[in-house]
């Protein structure tokens, strides 16, 4: 049985439709990421599930029970707020115990459960501290312990890591994933951060303008985005506006960009003959010194001549900006495993990428 089931949920604020016909279902123990830009309706969806907003249409079921008319305190939903919303006037232990007090845990059982929860989030011994005495990461873990303490049917995480700095974020992301898995919590993570969404979620749902635009496993979302919108939102990409070309080789479609560059794609030709958008991920690009090698020109490879504009080393990656014919800028990301010989601004290069790595929208 699904822990959560949303059917055609719609929410309007005045004339603005925040959520439109959203349907979701979630199996026990799974983690679902709700990804989208701000204002896409993901937070409203979360608030509807938690009971802070009443849907104008559709049904919400938690564990088979229609909760549409239930108040937040009548649903056993654990909520981790973006800013944690720890009660500043209560100690860590009082914060964690708060939910149990109101969900009817016998008073005698609370202290041991608090202890148990705090050791789960590795904060044993911090019971008497106040939230203001904790670091951001510790506060986040207290908030998680508080949300999990009542053993909620479903756990909702609202931008769980966005308040933390970049380095801590990675550490806590791994820890968060472990904790959620260890208690087997059925979870929805709402985030605008694709890395967070892809790494935490067993599945990812992309929302835009109140609607679900794609749902799938993280790899699927990245490798075969359903639309230009998804491709733009997840990962970096180089975009070309192109029209269908004349030359045709079996199994490939040929396109000509507005700057007259021919690009072949392996995907089947789209129905329309008009303009298409081609997308190439920077990671899928090889750069070669055009003076050293003449490009291999197999049917499934694209090769475009260009000039290096900028080389930026960002730790593990090297970002190379190449100018293509017609002043189009092109970004290539290379792993910084070894020094790339002779790659400097002004250098003439060939940009190589496989036809199967070209996404057509």
């Amino acid at each position, binding site marked *: 049985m699904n822990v959560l089931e949303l059917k055609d949920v719609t929410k309007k604020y005045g004339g603005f439709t925040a959520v439109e016909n959203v349907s979701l279902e979630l199996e026990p123990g799974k983690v679902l990421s709700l990804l989208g830009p701000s204002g896409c309706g993901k937070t409203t969806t979360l608030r509807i599930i938690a009971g802070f907003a009443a849907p104008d249409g559709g049904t919400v079921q938690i564990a088979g029970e229609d909760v549409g008319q239930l108040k937040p*305190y009548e649903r056993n939903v654990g909520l981790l707020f*973006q800013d944690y*919303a720890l009660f500043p006037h209560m100690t860590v232990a009082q914060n964690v115990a708060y*939910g149990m007090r109101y969900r009817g845990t016998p008073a005698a059982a609370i202290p041991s459960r608090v202890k148990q929860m705090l050791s789960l989030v590795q904060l044993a011994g911090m019971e008497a501290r106040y939230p203001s005495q904790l670091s951001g990461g510790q506060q986040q873990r207290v908030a998680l312990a508080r949300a999990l303490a009542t053993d909620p049917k479903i756990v909702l995480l609202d931008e769980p890591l966005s308040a933390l700095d970049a380095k801590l974020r990675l550490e806590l992301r791994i820890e968060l994933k472990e904790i959620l898995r260890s208690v087997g919590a059925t979870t929805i993570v709402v985030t605008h951060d694709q890395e967070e969404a892809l790494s935490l979620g067993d599945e990812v749902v992309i929302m835009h303008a109140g609607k679900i635009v794609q749902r799938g496993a993280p790899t699927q979302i990245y490798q075969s985005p359903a639309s230009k919108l998804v491709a733009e939102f997840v990962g970096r990409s180089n975009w070309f506006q192109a029209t269908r070309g004349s030359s045709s080789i079996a199994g490939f479609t040929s396109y000509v960009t507005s700057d007259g560059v021919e690009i072949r794609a392996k995907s089947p030709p789209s129905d329309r003959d008009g303009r298409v958008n081609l997308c190439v991920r920077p990671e899928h690009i090889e750069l070669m010194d055009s003076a050293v090698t003449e490009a291999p020109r197999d049917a499934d490879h694209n090769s475009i001549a260009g000039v290096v504009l900028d080389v930026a080393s960002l730790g593990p990656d090297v970002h190379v900006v190449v100018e293509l014919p017609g002043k189009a800028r092109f970004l290539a990301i290379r792993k910084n495993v070894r020094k790339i010989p002779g790659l400097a601004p002004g250098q003439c290069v060939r940009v190589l990428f496989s036809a199967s790595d070209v996404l057509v929208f």
Partner: protein
Amino acid sequence: MTAARSKLMLLLPAVAVFVLFLVFPILMVLNESFHTFEPGRIGSVEGGPLTLANYEELFQPVYAQYFAQTYVLAICSSAISIIFAFPIAYCIARTEFAWIQKASISAIVGLMFLSSLVRVYALELTFGSVGVLAPLMSIMDINTNSRLYINFVILAGLLQYSIPMSILILIGAIKNLNPRLTEAALSLGASALAAHITVTIPLSIRGIVSAFLVSMTLGVSAFVIPLILGRGRILFISNLIYSRFSEIANYPSGAAISIVMMVLALLLILVMSRLATSLERA
């Protein structure tokens, strides 16, 4: 350091006004309070012996009664206005409709800006002995000339000030409060009432104390309200001081009452702000 000095020069006009028209006069009141009163004379005898008699006099039950009268009503009005203002302030601060917020704040500010005499007169017209509610009172067998009723009307007068004031102060306090905290409490299973008792109210305690303090200050120094609504039968400390001056010209006694009243007012502020700090820490 001429620049620094010229900057301080800007303070000079205001400081001069304060020293001349506030500090000096209050020192004169203090001085006067230690002098003897001679009936028939305006003001004390210059260069006469200093005395504490004016203060000793205040321990008589007659005087204590004025203080009690003032403080009891001020405390009642402050407490009632907090009880009424808090839920209203919460609704205004948290409403999702911007126009409701704007309209209610405008109405409340309007009431606060309204001339105090207009408000007192409006109350007199409504609750007074010949006011529009008088027929209703007589049906309900309420004697509009009883002391209790006059006390009630004065209380209503104080509330006309302190409720709008408290609402505005509390709106500020509640707006400073993260609304997610109340939501967190609800999502953890607390009913709305429990969430307010355990989270919203403790975290707005500073605003609550502040609103109480402002109401108290307004209440204890009230002058116009008891002057008109008290019908001469109920006097506050302020009215007592005025009558010392206007009716019997006993300046030294008026001065002594003034000093006591001022010390009490400052003491109140001190105690309440201490209380706010300690409550917040707990």
